[in-house]
């Protein structure tokens, strides 16, 4: 068979025969059709061996054809571990095998299988650690062998994003139950989201056979799909995986490069059931697959899955699969039923009619193969003589396809995440679910309904219940369900003395591995999992959980219910970190003058979420730029954007009272037109912020706060006033005000050119005074400040005028050689003045006395936040202190964070340190032991490379101790 000689239509529901696609697998060219998966296209070309198993490097081919197993993991150019039975085929696609030495067909590492007896379960934990130190020898060898596929380290990240979806009802799974439930609810008026993992709607209706004539499924599928598609109340997400269930039906759904965060008022899980393999020797050979996989190949892709088939079954569905194979032209050599009789006697008659031999009460004991194990060549069929036991002799049947169906395991993962409990029903030999939360329904084969009529009835009932909860329908009377035959064979496990009877294909775990784990004392299934790694592979126990539960139960003399299965945590399938990350949202804030800084060549730096100019110039010239800017401010005039400084308008009759309680200083009698330093402590007496309170009117204060602290301070003010209930309005106007600090001896000259309605003379507008007026025609708040130690005016204007203000000042200052300066320069200038920056020069323990801020505390006030704690702290002997230190210009410069030593002990750390051109030496602030803090003391500081420099403690400020310059 070639890509162009597939089964005739209507087989091949998904493929478009008019669109052939060329691709490569393992260096050889192939052809498939649009709609094919990689695996289906390869199968159509007779290529079955797709991968090598993780541990023994056994050849593996398609098992489920539904992306539910690890047998089809292949390598794409930019992505390893791609499931070939899910990945759509694309023109020119290059696919390779992975995890082999040599070639995929001739893997030298397959020899490992010969030594499986020497690699028993848990041997990893015990084999490589003795004698002591040997792990270092083994580790590189094991690491070289570990992992599958190759990462493309040059891969460019792709765009991924997230979106919320809000719906009345989310239906997970678009099989017959999901379609029926969605349709029922949508017709009742609910907004429904239908989530389907596959690329098609209909679930098993698209590939399974539900009746002997083989007519019902397709007719029902067409009817349901036609009704659902285009329904105004139904949104369909195909190729979308609901990857978890979180409280209140919060569902992460991955589709393509997007993660939907679904908020559903109601949720119905109709996730179906996983077809289960039979455990026998060589049950993993290429050509051995689930009966459902063979039916998928036929119906979805028009691929004949083999020439001569044997069907091994424990339920009636195997018979129906045999009929499908027969109709597809496959020579069905035998149906081997582990039971004595099918539930539906008509099936026996149907087999007879087609001439397919039936072997009842029998099983496949071993799948046979030629050298290289590249495909199944026959089966050894034996009579079943007891639980897991077979007769000594049997018969061999040649075949190139072995289909198996041992029963079903509900796709319980989402439901267990929702709190559902699994219990084993011995009469059905299957797990059943109970204990689901409100607003979560379950319908279909996941709930043990396999009969189509029962299943449709249940879906309608569950949808009705959801609609009743939504207030869209009256709750109907409970539906009645017909009794259903058992679909699970109770013990489809036939251990072989030579092993290779795989329970877990991902991890190459055989029956004896599971049993031996229990013999090591790991009786709990969770411990069995961790010791043996069963269920830890990509298929996450979809086919191993049920046989493991049965084997552990038998080995520990407990019931399967008592044994249970391991916890099914999210995610349901592997998800990429890119999906979790989505499109990154990293907010930033820019001042009104931001672009002017950029145009002037500023090196921008983050200050919290703000972007601020650090200095103007190239990064490699940082020091020179800073020193030049600092000199300019000291000698001429500079302009800095201080818009990021926090701004809070506090207005109302109790404005002064509020500030009096929040800050350490006294504000009740602060005159209008004056500003006052404001220090804030928390209830523990720790300094948390500082700023300036400018009183513009009796009931109006304009309070500044630190750039990074203002949001917290605003919250504190609201929080405290929620208790105090003072008559005051607090407004955060940080972003609303653009502000600059015009600083330097020529500042007044510059401002005079733009501000004519305020007397700027030192007498009428002295240091610490505040005024309202206009600057360049803009309404402005003016504050005389001295943070950098020079004559300075902070000018605050509405943000809409910010850029214009900057332009006007730069223009007006041209003759005075005005120059912009940045934040790092400002930090140097304030350091020369010995001003602390809260959170840089303070930490989570700093109290006012440690930073010589005792002067900023109004001790006669009855209360301020932290007053009691400050008093207690001040009553204790000081243990440390923030001091100024100097070092010669030629000394190694300490960095922030470098340690201060006191003999053999660490007594503090450097908080700020720069070279001051003005002073010709290195200056800094550091915490030290109190006994080291007297001016003139020597302060040992350990700098880069472990060198210890001897700094000298000096009295602050370093510059202009009489503060004459700022009071000009």
């Amino acid at each position, binding site marked *: 068979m070639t890509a162009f000689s597939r089964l005739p239509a209507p087989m091949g529901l998904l493929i478009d025969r008019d669109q052939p696609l060329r691709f490569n697998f393992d260096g050889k060219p192939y052809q498939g059709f649009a709609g094919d998966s990689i695996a289906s296209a390869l199968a159509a070309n007779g290529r079955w061996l797709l991968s090598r198993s993780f541990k023994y490097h056994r050849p593996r081919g398609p098992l489920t054809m539904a992306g539910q197993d690890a047998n089809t993991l292949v390598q794409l150019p930019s992505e390893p571990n791609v499931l070939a039975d899910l990945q759509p085929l694309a023109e020119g696609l290059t696919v390779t095998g992975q995890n082999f030495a040599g070639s995929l067909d001739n893997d030298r590492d397959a020899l490992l299988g010969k030594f499986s007896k020497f690699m028993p379960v848990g041997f990893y934990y015990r084999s490589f650690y003795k004698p002591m130190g040997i792990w270092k020898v083994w580790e590189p060898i094991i690491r070289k062998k570990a992992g599958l596929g190759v990462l493309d380290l040059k891969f460019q990240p792709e765009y991924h994003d*997230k979106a919320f979806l*809000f719906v009345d009802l989310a239906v997970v799974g678009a099989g017959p139950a999901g379609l029926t439930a969605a349709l029922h609810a949508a017709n009742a008026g609910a907004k429904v989201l239908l989530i389907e993992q596959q690329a098609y709607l209909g679930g098993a209706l698209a590939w399974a056979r539900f009746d002997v004539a083989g007519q019902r499924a397709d007719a029902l599928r067409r009817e349901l799909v036609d009704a659902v598609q285009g329904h105004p109340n139904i949104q369909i997400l195909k190729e979308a995986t609901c990857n978890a269930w979180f409280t209140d039906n919060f569902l992460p759904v991955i589709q393509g490069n997007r993660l939907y*965060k679904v908020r559903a008022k109601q949720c119905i899980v109709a996730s179906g059931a996983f077809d289960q393999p039979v455990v026998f020797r060589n049950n993993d050979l290429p050509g051995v697959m689930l009966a459902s996989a063979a039916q998928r190949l036929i119906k979805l892709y028009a691929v004949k899955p083999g020439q001569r088939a044997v069907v091994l079954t424990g339920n009636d569905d195997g018979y129906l699969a045999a009929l499908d194979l027969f109709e597809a032209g496959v020579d069905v050599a035998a149906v081997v039923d582990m039971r004595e009789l099918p539930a539906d006697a008509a099936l026996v008659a149907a087999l007879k009619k087609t001439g397919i031999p039936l072997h009842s009460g029998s099983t496949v004991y071993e799948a046979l193969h030629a050298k290289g194990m590249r495909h199944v060549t026959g089966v050894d069929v034996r009579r079943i003589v007891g639980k897991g036991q077979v007769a000594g002799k049997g018969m061999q049947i040649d075949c190139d396809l072995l289909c198996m169906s041992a029963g079903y395991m509900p796709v319980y993962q989402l439901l267990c995440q929702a709190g559902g409990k699994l219990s084993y029903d011995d009469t059905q030999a299957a797990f059943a679910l109970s204990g689901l939360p409100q607003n979560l329904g379950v319908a279909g084969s996941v709930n043990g309904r396999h009969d189509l009529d029962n299943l449709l009835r249940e879906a309608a009932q569950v949808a009705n219940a959801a609609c009743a909860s939504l207030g869209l329908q009256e709750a109907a009377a409970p539906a009645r369900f017909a009794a259903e035959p058992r679909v699970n064979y109770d013990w489809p496990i036939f251990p072989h003395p030579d092993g290779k009877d795989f329970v877990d294909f991902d991890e190459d775990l055989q029956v004896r591995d599971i049993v031996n784990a229990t013999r090591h004392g790991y009786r709990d299934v969770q411990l069995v999992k961790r010791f043996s790694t069963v269920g830890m592979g990509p298929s996450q126990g979809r086919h191993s959980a049920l046989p493991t539960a049965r084997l552990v139960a038998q080995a520990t003399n407990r019931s399967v219910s008592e044994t249970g299965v391991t916890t099914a945590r999210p995610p349901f399938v592997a998800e990429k970190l890119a999906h979790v990350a989505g499109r990154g949202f990293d907010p930033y804030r820019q001042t009104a003058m931001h672009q002017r800084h950029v145009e002037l060549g500023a090196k921008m730096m983050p200050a919290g979420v703000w972007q601020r100019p650090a200095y103007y110039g190239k990064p490699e010239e940082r020091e020179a730029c800073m020193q030049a800017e600092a000199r300019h401010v000291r000698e001429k005039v500079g302009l800095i954007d201080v818009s990021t400084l926090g701004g809070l308008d506090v207005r109302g009759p109790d404005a002064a009272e509020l500030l009096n309680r929040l800050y350490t200083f006294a504000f009740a009698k602060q005159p209008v037109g004056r500003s006052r330093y404001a220090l804030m402590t928390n209830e523990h007496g720790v300094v948390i912020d500082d700023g300036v309170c400018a009183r513009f009117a009796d009931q109006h204060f304009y309070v500044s706060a630190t750039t990074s602290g203002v949001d917290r301070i605003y919250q504190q003010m609201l929080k405290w006033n929620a208790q105090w209930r003072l008559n005051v309005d607090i407004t955060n106007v940080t972003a609303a005000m653009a502000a600059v600090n015009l600083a330097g001896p020529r500042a007044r000259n510059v401002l005079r050119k733009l501000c004519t309605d305020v007397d700027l003379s030192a007498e009428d507008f002295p240091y610490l005074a505040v005024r309202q007026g206009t600057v360049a025609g803009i309404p402005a708040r003016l504050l005389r400040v001295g943070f950098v130690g020079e004559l300075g005016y902070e000018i605050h204007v509405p*943000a809409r005028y910010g850029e214009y203000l900057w332009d006007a000042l730069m223009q007006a200052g041209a003759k005075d050689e005005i120059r912009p300066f940045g934040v790092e320069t400002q930090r140097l200038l304030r350091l020369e003045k010995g001003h602390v920056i809260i959170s840089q020069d303070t930490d989570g323990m700093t109290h006012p006395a440690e930073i010589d801020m005792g002067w900023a505390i109004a001790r006669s006030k009855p209360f301020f936040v932290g007053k009691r704690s400050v008093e207690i702290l001040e009553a204790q002997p000081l243990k440390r202190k923030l001091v100024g230190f100097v070092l010669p210009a030629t000394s190694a410069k300490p960095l922030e964070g470098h340690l201060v030593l006191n003999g053999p002990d660490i007594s503090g750390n450097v908080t700020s340190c720069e070279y001051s051109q003005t002073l010709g030496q290195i200056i800094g602030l550091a915490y030290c032991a109190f006994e080291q803090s007297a001016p003139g003391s020597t302060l040992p500081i350990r700098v880069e490379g472990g060198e210890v420099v001897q700094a000298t403690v000096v009295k602050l400020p370093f510059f202009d101790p009489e503060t004459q310059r700022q009071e000009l």
Partner: protein
Amino acid sequence: MAALQAQQFIERSPLYRQQADATLGRLGDSVIVAHYGEHDESPQLQRCALLDLTNLARVGFRGAAAAEYLLERGYQLPEAPNRALTQSDGSHVARLSQTEYLLLGSLRDAGARIAAEEAGWQFSETANYLLPRQDSHAWLLLTGAHIAEVMAKLCGVDLRPEAFPVGAVAQTSAARINVIVVNLPEGELPCFQILCDRASVAYFWDALLDAMAEFGGQPAGIDALL
């Protein structure tokens, strides 16, 4: 006549550089984007468009006396917090809390009425405090058939019409910044009036355009709105 430039005016939107290829129109003491290109932007507005109304007047009032003050000045006030009403002159009033109101200007009078409210307010001892919303917040208008889907990519609140009807106000977070979203259509055109931190609007503008891309969203001007 030479084309208008944003830098000719003292009031400037933080986004004016992103609008360099737009034709600007006069709006009071500032400018606003009239249109991009020469074609009629009405279909774009109907599909998915983003307009910068940051230079259009808006102001807030808060305090126990705010409602009385506004009623005296002829405004219709929403009866409950998180509701908004369009006034007869095209301006809007959103009630953000029991005692806080946000007034959004109308393009019909270039925001003159609301601008006058801001200019005319005097600090007094009555509990009615002006909030400088024009300077604290940028104002964006998201229009078209996909506004709820666009916001669903940025915001965890259900803004579909059935959950967020006309006149509803959401004070929430979108793309990790605080926003006020008001559902006030312009006639038949679905619109979200979005107010965000003015200093963050360059960031938020890009985040919105990115979210709009899959719906064919583009920036647009006010001509097609009038």
